[in-house]
């Protein structure tokens, strides 16, 4: 298929939307060098951003606030974090929690003491607080009790925790929500995207998490010092590097991909464009192939540290480990001097291996080609406000044909079958977040949110069959306004080929987890650990360089640590 691309003008994507946009495949995505964390860190270290504390006001028990700032070439931002005394029985990752170990906001500039006092009245209350345009991100985090207490204990007695123990959990604190884009009064995305450093998606939220990571290291040192006094030591940099920030993510994130087809299209088409560019390379160098093999070997080693409680994920990780071993053997014998070597190698992977291994391989072949593909990162944003429009002068017959051409995945499903319409998406009265209900077991399906894209397009299609083919769409939508949303999706589908998940999002077998993993992989998350089919734990920035470390030593391949 052809798709007009800003950089490439026209590119024949190697993998079609029909192949890529299936839940099972997007639910197997891994981070790539286009992932948003990697884009952010490349910028931070190439522009040599400065990090410094402006305030460290914690009491003798470790509670109070700190202000950790970052100076970019054009602006200063500060993470204002509040450390709270949280009784163990109140520590919960659920969105219904009302207290946390740490709450934080990322603000513009360095806040005055008056501003900090104001933030102290709002930030700890999270959703119940009100923020202003000066605040860009709001979030909270809880300790990993097991690792936190163990690390504090060891450091306070003058020793370092073991590397195995630290790697096993991977984080000292995990965020349970990180809000941006105008929520609770925060600055809108339309404001944030005007700051060059935050134009790529989710840069501001991920900067907050990156700053948080360093604050957590300093907090754990502080708690150890409180406990151990002069005997205490600080956490070694070697250990800090393998500690990221954990995160629990639920359904709130899943609906994003459906509500923003324009963004989904940009993310996936950038990724697929990158894959295509690499597969089309006529020849490759020894250095490039060696780098691939090195990162492949590290990936195989790192799989051992990918722990999950989910039986199905454990199985997938096991399969991934053995398939990567097989790929290592294949690569060792592979003649990379043939024409289009990546295409040959990747075709072999596609024929032989699981989706998990295919998608990790897709990430790996991109790694040697920063110069070729990193600029695609600039195209992963969609300027807010640009409006998709309905050309109401198209006829109903034309729209029917368009649906037949582009939405066969939607119209071939029988939604009258209860299994195919078993679920419904709704907005929770309790937490004002998206949730998934069981249509035939729970109340509320009459208030369904418009996430059943496939079904709605099929209903639109069936309805179109009932009207005259030459009827104009604008006229039709006056009589049948309930199809307006579906009409817009159909009309924009040609310009956004990767904008739609081509699966039934209300079927009994649908796993929202796949949507979460897709989005989180674009963030750059690793160590996906599904806790049910509706929420997942992950790790962010594990193995990333520390804020303030020597920029000249920046290792762009940090997600693939050596000596796993």
């Amino acid at each position, binding site marked *: 298929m052809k798709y007009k691309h800003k950089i490439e003008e026209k590119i024949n994507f190697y993998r079609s939307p029909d192949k890529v946009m299936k839940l099972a495949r997007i639910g197997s995505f891994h981070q790539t060098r286009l992932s948003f964390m990697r884009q952010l860190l490349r910028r931070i270290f190439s522009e040599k951003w400065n990090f410094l504390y402006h305030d460290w006001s914690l009491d003798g028990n470790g509670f109070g606030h700190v202000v950790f700032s970052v100076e970019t070439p054009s602006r200063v931002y500060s993470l204002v974090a509040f450390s709270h005394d949280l009784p*163990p029985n109140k*520590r*919960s*990752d*659920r*969105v219904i*929690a009302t207290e946390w170990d740490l709450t934080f906001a990322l603000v513009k500039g360095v806040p005055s003491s008056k501003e900090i006092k104001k933030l102290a009245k709002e930030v700890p209350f999270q959703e119940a607080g009100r923020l*202003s*345009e000066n605040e860009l991100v709001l979030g909270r985090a809880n300790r*990993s*009790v*097991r*690792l936190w207490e163990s690390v504090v204990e060891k450091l306070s007695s003058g020793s370092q925790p073991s590397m195995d123990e630290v790697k096993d959990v991977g984080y000292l604190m995990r965020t349970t929500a990180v809000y941006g884009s*105008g*929520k609770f*009064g*925060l*600055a*809108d*995305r*339309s*404001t944030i995207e005007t700051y060059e450093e935050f134009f790529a998606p989710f840069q501001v939220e991920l900067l907050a998490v990156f700053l948080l990571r360093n604050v957590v290291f300093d907090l754990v040192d502080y708690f150890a010092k409180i406990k151990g006094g002069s005997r205490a030591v600080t956490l070694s940099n070697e250990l800090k590097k393998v500690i990221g920030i954990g995160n*629990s*993510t*639920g*359904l709130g994130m899943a609906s994003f991909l459906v509500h923003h087809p324009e963004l989904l299209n940009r993310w996936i088409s950038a990724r697929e464009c990158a894959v295509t560019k690499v597969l089309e390379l006529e020849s490759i160098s020894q250095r490039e192939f060696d780098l691939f093999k090195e990162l492949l070997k590290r990936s195989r080693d790192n799989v051992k540290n990918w722990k999950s409680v989910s039986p199905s994920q454990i199985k997938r990780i096991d399969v991934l480990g053995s398939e990567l071993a097989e790929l290592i053997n294949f690569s060792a014998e592979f003649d990379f001097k043939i024409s289009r070597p990546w295409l040959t190698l990747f075709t072999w992977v596609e024929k032989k291996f699981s989706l998990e291994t295919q998608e990790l391989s897709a990430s790996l072949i991109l790694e040697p080609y920063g110069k070729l593909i990193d600029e695609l990162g600039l195209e992963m944003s969609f300027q807010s*406000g*640009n*409006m998709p*429009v*309905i*050309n*109401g002068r198209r006829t109903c017959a034309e729209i029917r044909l368009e649906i037949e051409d582009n939405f066969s995945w939607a119209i071939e499903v029988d939604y009258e079958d209860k299994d195919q319409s078993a679920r419904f998406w709704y907005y*929770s*009265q*309790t*937490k004002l977040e998206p*949730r*998934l*209900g*069981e249509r035939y077991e*729970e*109340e*509320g399906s009459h*208030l369904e949110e418009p996430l059943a894209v496939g079904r709605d397009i099929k209903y639109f299609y069936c309805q179109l069959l009932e009207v005259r083919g030459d009827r*104009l769409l*604008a*006229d039709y*939508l*006056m*009589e049948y*306004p*309930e*199809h*307006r*949303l579906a009409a*817009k999706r159909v009309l924009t589908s040609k310009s956004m080929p990767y904008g739609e998940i081509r699966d039934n999002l209300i079927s009994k077998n649908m796993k929202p987890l796949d949507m979460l993993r897709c989005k989180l992989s674009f963030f750059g998350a690793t160590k996906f650990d599904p*806790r*049910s089919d509706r*929420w997942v734990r992950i790790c962010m920035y594990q193995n990333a360089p520390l804020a303030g470390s020597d920029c000249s030593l920046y290792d762009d391949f940090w997600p693939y640590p050596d000596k796993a």
Partner: protein
Amino acid sequence: MYSLGEVEALSKKASKAAGLSWGEAAEVGRAIRSLAKFELPSVEAFTPFLNDFFQRKIYRPNTLEELKSNGKPLVGFFLGLYIIDFEFFRPKAEKVKVLRFEKVIQPLTLLGVLLPIVNNGVKLEVFWKNFSFSASPNAHEQHGKNDNPKLEQTLSIHFSICKEKKLDSFINRIRVKRKDWKNLEELAFKTYVPESKISREKGAGSGDLIDD
């Protein structure tokens, strides 16, 4: 003060609850956001429309023919949809310089629906009695009173392509009267579903309170 995102999201849900389709509700959200961005009355412009629609006091045309020929006053919002869906796509040869309409109810709702296309590189000019407004990606200005008359006798609209892409600076906060916000919240609430036992058992963090 509210962010544009907050107002858009709440307006969309309130509009759905008022009886509009999800597609139309999304247009309301965008319209309110755009009105606010251009410093025009936003939530307050749509409150009477949503309340009237909820109470089934609003006439909505079923066909283009009905909209154009039955002589009834035209509701600004629906007229706006007709313009962006239909008039906006008129072939070049048939393009008219100025669109004129008579008897338009709540014309600011119409202007709100049209405003988002300014982001697509369009210059838009709208005139009614004692009021004119123009907007392009690089500038906007208004003259006269910007209230939202219940019924405007004559209204004119002009579109043109704007080649300059320098972005105008916009406001990004909305001051909303307490009663209008409450009205939106109450309407939006009607689209929310109480949490069920199943969702409590399966939601993020469930079954995993403590801890690793």
